[in-house]
């Protein structure tokens, strides 16, 4: 059934080099035409089959069929803006009939007699390169011929026509419902969510897939919750646990692991757009304090902080903090301020280049991040014009943005560049210590500088000695004179002896005057640097900080141009979300606090439990990361252009449960992980592929490739090198001589880069979340495996399959070293026979024992390779093994070769 035909094989091979397009979401999205056609057939004939006849709606109505086309193609010029081209407004049928400068454009019943049809049909309209397609044209033609009908009477006020009923009725804008848990027979229901899944499976007469075996399950759940493989001890404990709730206890053990926060914190950092550089400009200056936000996120997940509080803290931590201005000596207030760093994650080029456009870019990127992260809506698309698909007008956008405008005062002097937003909360004793060390360094430095100046005087004397005797005195006097006091003759004279300069100048330029001495001084200066290096760093935070009293006037920016402010707006939730629940208007200025209080009021509204999107969006992400695909497959777009939920009632039920139980995310994880649905095996079957090829019904688990971080962390873990420490400043990334981004720092000698100082062993083996995230300099290994660039954030990771990944597994020194480490570990801890070595290896990598067939073939590989290495020794490897290991070297090498191959294998890279 699923054998490959040659055509598909060819395509698949080409997909190896261009996999990104192969896995792009846009293709399946545009296949709705197929869906629709097939659907019609399904409706008529039951199931399956191929449909060829094209079908079109019989009765064409404006709101449903024509308006979406016009909204995307025409409203921008003919409707949205106050100045309408040709005075023509196409938003209502009656306005088309009334027409504009060229008279009526619509003559119902007579397409050819309608100007709008003639303009569209001849491609005179719309202007620009995008035209209506033949089928869109045909639709417009038939609509006019049928009499240009509407579904409902048109509103009297054109302003009420901004949104159509279809848009307003869109599922995501409706309140979260409280669906009954369905009653389903014949399925093993472990948690209520299984019933929702089972019901849809039952419609297709599909069963749940059989439960995964224990090795698969423990590997799956450990990766899901920690991003690491299970330890051998954990596997043993699970296998030996005969209690009926062994799996439940396993889940609880892993949920309690501090590595849980690393994994789930990483998911949140993706959508928050966590980065440790400013971005936006080439120089990409660093944000050396951003790691505190990363730790806040990890700690919050580990502490199972209720998600509503987590959201509120990030939106308005500074306004929640009880003191005002917040007190940086108070640990809780520091936490709240750290959380507010969420609003400062977006790229901000104003440090290097503080222009109006860059300020606006920083503001709009922040809106993009927070709206996709919290609402699952592409609000940012309404920045220049009304949203093309969703009922979000440009006015809505700027009203929404006005909530955050006090953080982004575009005009005037209230804008603060990133360095000006830092707050310093260095404890007094730390500060005192730093000052003491600085003073110490200064003493040494001053002494060196004094000697340099002395030397400058000596060199000057020598340089003057080079000047012919008859001019010497005159040159000396000219040089001693202050520059502004020199006369023309003195200036000329000094030009002829350009090396004659003041002692201070010479002291600062020793590298050119006397390089040997300069080097000695450089060496001495290292002492100063060494003293300074012991200074404890400042404790600083980048926070969302409203300047008390700053509440910029908020206005619609005409076509998104910050230089063209127009209509004034006041802070508000998006109109389409204001209806359910009705939102009390947000304050422009809360009289009871120094800041405006807008963000706090909004955060409270967002987490009231009644907001239609907050809980749904979060629950959907949780599902996405457990199953590899969300209930809504477009986690950042719940709008009209996004995908519809596969299980709308389940989504609402989960969202409702989540809120009802205090936004407790660990409870939600448990609910999902303990379900029958989650515990299914991942194997495809012909029947499942036939009826549900994309596994939308979740009749099995999805096979998933590890993300970049999980690959690196897992390799370190199984090779026994992983340093599981949490928190602290990031492990720096730098470019080495080959242009490769590696862990380490630039070494400087004599002011010039002299190479790379590799990260210390302890640091080099930390988990990937602690690797510095410079937007322009991602660690090579991570970017090879699709770690996204934060521009401004990442909502859904892609998983490519490219040759550079294969080359990494085959040849990269990191992996070869890890394989050596793993082999050495096995040699050191196992009996000296292939079977126990292979068993130990398989348990570490795959949480299971090798089959006897595998033992036979792999033992064969080991003995073959040992023989080969015995005849072809590698001097370097043997040298490292030392005299004791020399006899074992061929066997260790063979084992290392096997380890590397197993690490490169699909079985390791994919999680069932």
């Amino acid at each position, binding site marked *: 059934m699923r054998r490959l035909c040659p055509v598909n094989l060819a395509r*698949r091979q080409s997909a190896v080099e261009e996999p990104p397009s192969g896995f792009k979401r846009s293709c399946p999205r545009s296949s709705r035409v197929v869906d629709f056609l097939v659907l019609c057939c399904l409706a008529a004939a039951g199931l399956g089959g191929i449909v060829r006849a094209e079908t079109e709606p019989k009765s064409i109505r404006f709101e449903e069929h024509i308006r979406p086309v016009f909204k995307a193609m025409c409203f921008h010029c003919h409707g949205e803006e106050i100045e309408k081209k040709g005075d023509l407004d196409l938003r209502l049928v009656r306005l088309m009939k009334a027409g504009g400068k060229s008279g009526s454009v619509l003559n119902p019943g007579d397409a050819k007699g309608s100007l709008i049809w003639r303009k569209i049909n001849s491609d005179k309209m719309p202007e620009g390169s995008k035209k209506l397609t033949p089928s869109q044209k045909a639709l417009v033609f038939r609509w006019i011929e049928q009499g240009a009908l509407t579904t409902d009477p048109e509103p009297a006020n054109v302003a009420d026509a901004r949104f159509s009923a279809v848009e307003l009725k869109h599922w995501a804008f409706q309140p979260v419902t409280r669906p009954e848990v369905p009653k389903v027979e014949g399925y093993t229901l472990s948690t209520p969510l299984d019933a929702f899944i089972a019901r849809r499976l039952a419609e297709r007469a599909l069963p749940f897939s059989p439960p995964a075996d224990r090795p698969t399950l423990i590997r799956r759940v450990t990766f899901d919750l920690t991003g690491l493989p299970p330890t051998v001890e954990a596997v043993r404990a699970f296998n030996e646990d005969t209690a009926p709730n062994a799996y439940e206890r396993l889940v609880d053990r892993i949920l309690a692991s501090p590595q849980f926060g690393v994994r789930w914190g990483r998911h949140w950092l993706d959508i928050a757009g966590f980065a440790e550089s400013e971005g936006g400009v080439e120089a990409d200056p660093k944000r050396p304090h951003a790691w505190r936000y990363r730790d806040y996120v990890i700690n919050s997940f580990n502490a199972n902080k209720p998600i509503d509080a987590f959201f509120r803290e990030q939106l308005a931590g500074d306004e929640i903090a009880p003191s005002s201005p917040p007190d940086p000596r108070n640990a809780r207030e520091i936490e709240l301020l750290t959380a507010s760093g969420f609003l400062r994650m977006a790229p901000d080029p104003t440090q290097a280049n503080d222009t109006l456009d860059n300020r606006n870019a920083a503001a709009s990127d922040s809106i993009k991040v927070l709206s996709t992260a919290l609402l699952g809506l592409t609000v940012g698309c309404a920045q220049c014009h009304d949203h093309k698909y969703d009922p979000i007008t440009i006015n809505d956008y700027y009203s929404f943005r006005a909530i955050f405008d006090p953080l982004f005062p575009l005009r005037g002097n209230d804008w603060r560049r990133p360095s000006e937003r830092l707050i310093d909360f260095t404890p007094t004793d730390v500060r005192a210590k730093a000052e003491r060390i600085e003073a110490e360094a200064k003493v040494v430095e001053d002494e060196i500088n004094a000697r340099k100046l002395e030397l400058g005087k000596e060199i000057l004397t020598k340089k003057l000695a080079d000047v012919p005797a008859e001019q010497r005195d005159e040159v000396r006097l000219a040089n001693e004179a202050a520059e502004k006091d020199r006369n023309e003759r003195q200036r000329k004279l000094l030009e002829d002896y350009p090396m004659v300069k003041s002692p201070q100048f010479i002291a600062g330029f020793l590298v050119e005057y006397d390089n040997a001495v300069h080097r000695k001084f450089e060496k001495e200066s290292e002492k100063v640097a060494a003293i300074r290096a012991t200074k404890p760093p400042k404790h600083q935070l980048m926070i969302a900080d409203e300047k008390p009293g700053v509440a910029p006037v908020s206005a619609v920016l005409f076509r998104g141009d910050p230089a063209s402010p127009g209509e004034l707006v006041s802070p508000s939730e998006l109109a389409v979300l204001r209806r359910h629940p009705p939102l009390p208007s947000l304050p422009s200025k809360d009289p009871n606090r120094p800041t405006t209080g807008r963000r706090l009021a909004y955060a409270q509204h967002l987490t009231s439990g009644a907001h239609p999107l907050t809980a749904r969006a979060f629950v959907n992400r949780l599902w996405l990361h457990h199953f590899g695909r969300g209930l809504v497959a477009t986690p950042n777009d719940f709008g009209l252009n996004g995908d519809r939920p596969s299980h709308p009632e389940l989504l609402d039920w989960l969202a409702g449960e989540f809120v009802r139980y205090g936004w407790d995310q660990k409870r939600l994880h448990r609910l999902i992980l303990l379900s029958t649905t989650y515990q299914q095996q991942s194997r495809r079957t012909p029947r499942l592929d036939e009826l549900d090829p994309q596994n939308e019904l979740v009749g099995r688990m999805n096979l998933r490739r590890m993300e970049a971080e999980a690959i690196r962390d897992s390799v370190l873990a199984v090779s026994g090198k992983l340093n599981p420490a949490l928190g602290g400043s990031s492990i720096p990334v730098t470019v080495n001589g080959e242009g490769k981004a590696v862990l380490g720092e630039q070494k400087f000698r004599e002011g010039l880069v002299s190479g790379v100082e590799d990260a210390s062993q302890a640091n080099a083996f930390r988990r990937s979340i602690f690797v510095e995230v410079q937007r322009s300099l991602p660690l090579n290994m991570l970017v090879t495996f699709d770690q996204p660039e934060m521009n401004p954030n990442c909502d859904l990771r892609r998983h490519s399959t490219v040759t550079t990944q294969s080359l990494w597994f085959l040849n990269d020194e990191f992996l070869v070293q890890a394989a050596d480490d793993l082999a050495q570990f096995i040699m050191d801890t196992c009996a000296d026979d292939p079977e126990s070595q292979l068993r130990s290896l398989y348990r570490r990598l795959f949480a299971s024992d090798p089959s006897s067939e595998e033992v036979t073939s792999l033992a064969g590989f080991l003995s073959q390779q040992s023989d080969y290495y015995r005849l072809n020794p590698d001097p370097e490897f043997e040298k490292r093994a030392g005299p004791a290991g020399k006899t074992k070297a061929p066997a260790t090498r063979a084992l290392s070769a096997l380890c590397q191959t197993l690490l490169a294998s699909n079985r390791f890279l994919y999680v069932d």
Partner: protein
Amino acid sequence: MPNPINSHGLCSRRHVLRTSAFGLSSVAAAWLLKQDGLLGAEPVKPPLEPASYDLLPKAPTRPGKARAMISMFMLGGPSQVDLFDPKPELIKRNGQSFPGDVKWDNPAQASREIMAPLWKFQHHGRCGMELSELLPHLGGVADEITLIRSMRTGVNNHVPSNFALTTGKPEHGRAVLGSWLASALGSVSQDLPAFVALTDPRGLPLLGGENWHHGRLPSIYQGTMVRPTEPRIFNLAPPSRLRGAPQSAQLNLLHSLNRRHLVDHPGENELEARMASYQLAARMQLAATEAFDISTESEATRRLYGVDQDVTRDYGTRCLIARRLVERGVRFVQIFCNGQTWDHHGSINTALPARCREIDQPAAALVRDLQQRGLLDSTLVHWGGEMGRLPVIQFRDGLTQRDKVGRDHNTYGFSMWVAGGGFRGGYIHGATDEFSHHAIQGTVHHYDWLATVLHLFGLDHNELRFRVGPRDLKLVEHAEARVVQDLLA
């Protein structure tokens, strides 16, 4: 039977199943907007995930003459005064004080004493191009090359001037020309990197990897450093102890492990794609190894490049590899010297001839060889540094040590030569003042140079942009940049 599903989602039925829970009408509304998406007329939707990038060959915006480029980059700044830009005035005024301002970089050892060229110039070719006696082989291809005597960046130190010439602005962190060409045009060969940096056995160039860094462009467009010794490409070639039989054995084992894994995972296309990608990786290793192996070149060719002589062996080998790479579809090859080896602040009278002996024959051979193989028309060859030198003496070791003198930086007027790829052969462009200090005629600024190179590749410097995040990146940002028409054939 054909597989009904593929990763491109061209025939996906999952949407049917999903949408069936909603009435027909909402599907119909979606259908209206979506169905023409297949025809490509749907408004572009906001990206749902990071854009993906590739190195597949792409057509330029209009036909361009150049399809590949080899740049021999002479970091440090070869002295145009002694190599390319003869000035009788300097001979006449040798030893006299320079009239007017001198733009020194290093005042500590500066002087105003004019130093005439230390070597004689001779006329070459039908065009009568005057070149230094240090470059006899280059004289042999004078009619093929274009000598530009009026280069200018105006930023008088190595790092900023290097960046100006290669990235368009004297700033850190921008993408270099090779990355731009790789992003705009991809590579003809998918088995070899699109952009290759060939480094010197004596060390990396000043700034190392920044010379082939992708800047803010996606990292896939970064140059691949080819080391002068094995392993030549990082991660492309296996570590020495895995080379050959050991890695073949690993690949065989990997394939059988993955095949067995696939049996348990029927229909998982991605697993098969990954298996195929290992085969492709193995092919790449072979392709690169083959491209770097000059042993198959004829004796005559190897002699032409000077591979048979000690002094020219290394540079000749790298020039020959560059030609082999371009032949095999690589877009951009840059050959680097170590450090800033042309930076002759002192001892120029011995150091400059030594450098010239190493590169003169191989560089000229590259032009001749490309021409003989019919590749010169489509291959843009460039030879030059980031600066030239001053016409006055720099006293490295005091005014009395006259055998150790050199010349200081000059980015205001310097020379470089180009050939092929649509440049006009046997032509001398522009001029400096009578002392070879400032370009005064036909000045080619760094941005003009880049605009002209892009033009020859069929790219417009005003239109060449790359969107990263919300903003466009550009190689050439100067509004006054222009294509230097006189340079074109």
